[in-house]
């Protein structure tokens, strides 16, 4: 077991797959010689060279279009969109082209490609560089969506995404890049569509994603220790496919669901899970479903403003104390 940072796990996952398969190529802005603006792809250019690691112009539509065209003709491209906010400038390629090609052609076109992007807040970058937009992707039929919270998941899910025959969006939470964790040695390939239960409790089930998993765990610790409230914590990991089996089972056990979402409130993944729970295991619920989200506003940039906007450990503790008995 080695200890890697989340950002090192990105490069490790990509490198593992590029070594295995000559058809895996990687393109994006400043990813090569510079090792990426988040330094998450350091060393790849040196190992795989300019034929397989390609720095591009600032042309996000061309980047994803090129990935799509390459994927339908035998390559397995990984494309980086530097900040997830920039998905908006190439959303047509994601939502209308990549996501729909296979269905529209009744299976003639298959797109084994990966889009990686840095998601989320916490860096004082302001509203155009801090969004959590995994829900934009979840709302589009035809793309798979994962958002790892730990270095091992980063490596394993990137590998799984590269091997998956369908398009996968990998949301890397930028606030987690420096986070360190154990990553098993040797080849690591995870599975898309599997949630993980990180903690077992009796009073409520917290379902969280990416950075919010860490906050959920911290809050659960405090709730247990200081307030005698015992929480299950489920790391969703994969929004599409969604592991409803695990989520429904864990919510049914405690009878209460709390989602913790970094996204602005409306139409977040937590709403979807809430609606599934309120339909399929309604009779197992012992009380209201709680969603703890960033308020439905663009993100402010100053320290105190940003810190008080996305859900904090304190807020999670407070809301669960108030609402779960």
């Amino acid at each position, binding site marked *: 077991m080695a200890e890697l940072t989340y950002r090192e796990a990105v490069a490790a996952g990509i490198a593992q797959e590029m070594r295995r398969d000559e058809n895996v190529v990687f393109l994006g802005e400043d990813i090569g010689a510079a090792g990426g603006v988040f330094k998450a792809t350091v060393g790849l250019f040196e190992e795989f060279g300019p034929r397989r690691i390609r720095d591009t112009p600032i042309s996000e*539509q061309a980047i994803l279009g090129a990935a799509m065209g*390459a994927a339908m003709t035998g390559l397995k491209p990984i494309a980086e969109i530097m900040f997830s906010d920039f998905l908006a400038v190439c959303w047509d390629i994601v939502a209308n082209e990549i996501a729909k090609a296979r269905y529209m052609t009744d299976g003639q076109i298959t797109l084994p490609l990966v889009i990686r992007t840095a998601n989320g807040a916490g860096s004082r970058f302001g509203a155009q560089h801090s969004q959590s937009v995994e829900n934009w992707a979840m709302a589009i039929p035809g793309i798979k969506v994962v958002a790892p919270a730990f270095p091992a998941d980063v490596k394993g899910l990137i590998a799984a995404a590269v091997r998956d025959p369908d398009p996968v969006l990998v949301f890397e939470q930028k606030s987690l890049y420096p986070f360190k964790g154990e990553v098993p040695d040797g080849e690591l390939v995870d599975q898309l569509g599997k949630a993980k239960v990180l903690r077992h409790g009796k009073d409520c089930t917290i379902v969280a994603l990416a950075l919010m998993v860490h906050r959920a765990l911290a809050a659960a610790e405090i709730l247990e220790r200081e307030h005698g409230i015992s929480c299950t914590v489920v790391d969703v990991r994969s929004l599409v496919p969604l592991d409803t089996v695990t989520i429904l089972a864990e919510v049914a056990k405690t009878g209460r669901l709390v989602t913790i979402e970094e996204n602005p409130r409306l139409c977040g993944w937590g709403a979807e899970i809430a609606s599934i729970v309120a339909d399929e295991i309604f009779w197992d619920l012992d009380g209201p479903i709680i969603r703890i989200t960033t308020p439905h506003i663009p993100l402010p940039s100053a320290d105190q403003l940003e810190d008080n906007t996305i859900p904090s450990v304190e807020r999670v503790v407070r809301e669960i104390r108030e609402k779960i008995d």
Partner: protein
Amino acid sequence: MDTTKPMTLGYDIRLELYRLQLDLRYCEKRAYDLFLQNLIKGTSHLSLGQEAIAAAFGVAMRPDDLTFCTYRGHAHTLARGASMEGVLGELMGRECGLLGGKGGSMHLTDVSKGAMGSYAIIGAHLPVAAGAAWSAQYRGSGQVTVCFFGDGTTNIGAFHEALNFAVIWKLPVIFVCENNLYMEYTPISSVTAVEHPAADRAGAYGLEKIVVDGNDADAVYRTAVQYLERARSGGGPALIECMTYRHSGHSRADPGQYRPPGELDRWLERDPLKIYRERLLGLGIVEATLNDLEAESMRKVDAATETAKASPAPAVSEIDKNVWADGSTAWRN
């Protein structure tokens, strides 16, 4: 190749060009008739009057080359060898359709023939075509990608990104702008800063300005051969603007009344099939040969129409297939 002298075209190529133009014309006309009979639903964008371009590239391309086209893509898809019943069946929403009824008129695709899809969002397929060319370059397959689009497409961002991208990576891709003077109902000249929306911008990507008579299959063919060869041998992309005109409205819903009186008539004089038939006769090909080709083409269209009409509607169970590579549509376990 010596590009200073015009290439001499043999009879076989010329007859092939005529034959293919006939197929495209008759099949497209049939599509129009089927609309009138309400057998085709939704919308449909015909290439009537523009067939020379698709046909010339169809003949010039290598079987494993790749085509990307738009919602106005029946001709381009047929020109690569897709079956007429597959095309007409798709327009009619039948099981035998190229896409089993899932895509419809705007998304014709036949990957087995290198027809890599018809894209209905303006501009989107240009970067995708660049990507396919990148893949060919990477794999060293020698394939060239040809990407067709309209004049109006030159004003959207994806055009710009794709052109620059293709040039800096020296990709084997030919961008073919079919300038038919109109977007939907608005003349391209009223919304474009230059006269030739594609060719006058080639310089912005370090490319040469190329304008071709798009109603002359020979002219398009010669140009196609020249730049396909160049791209195949590593010379990089080209941007070719073909001047042409659509005989019908933009889509099924459009009677085309925004066109100034007389304009259509002048272009009908320059109908690519008329021009080509006269040229072949002038070259000494006997009329009976042409009549035979015409009859044969019509027979094919008739047979395809019958096959498509006889094909059932796709089963409702097909709805739940083929979002994912495993054939399913499941988003949960």
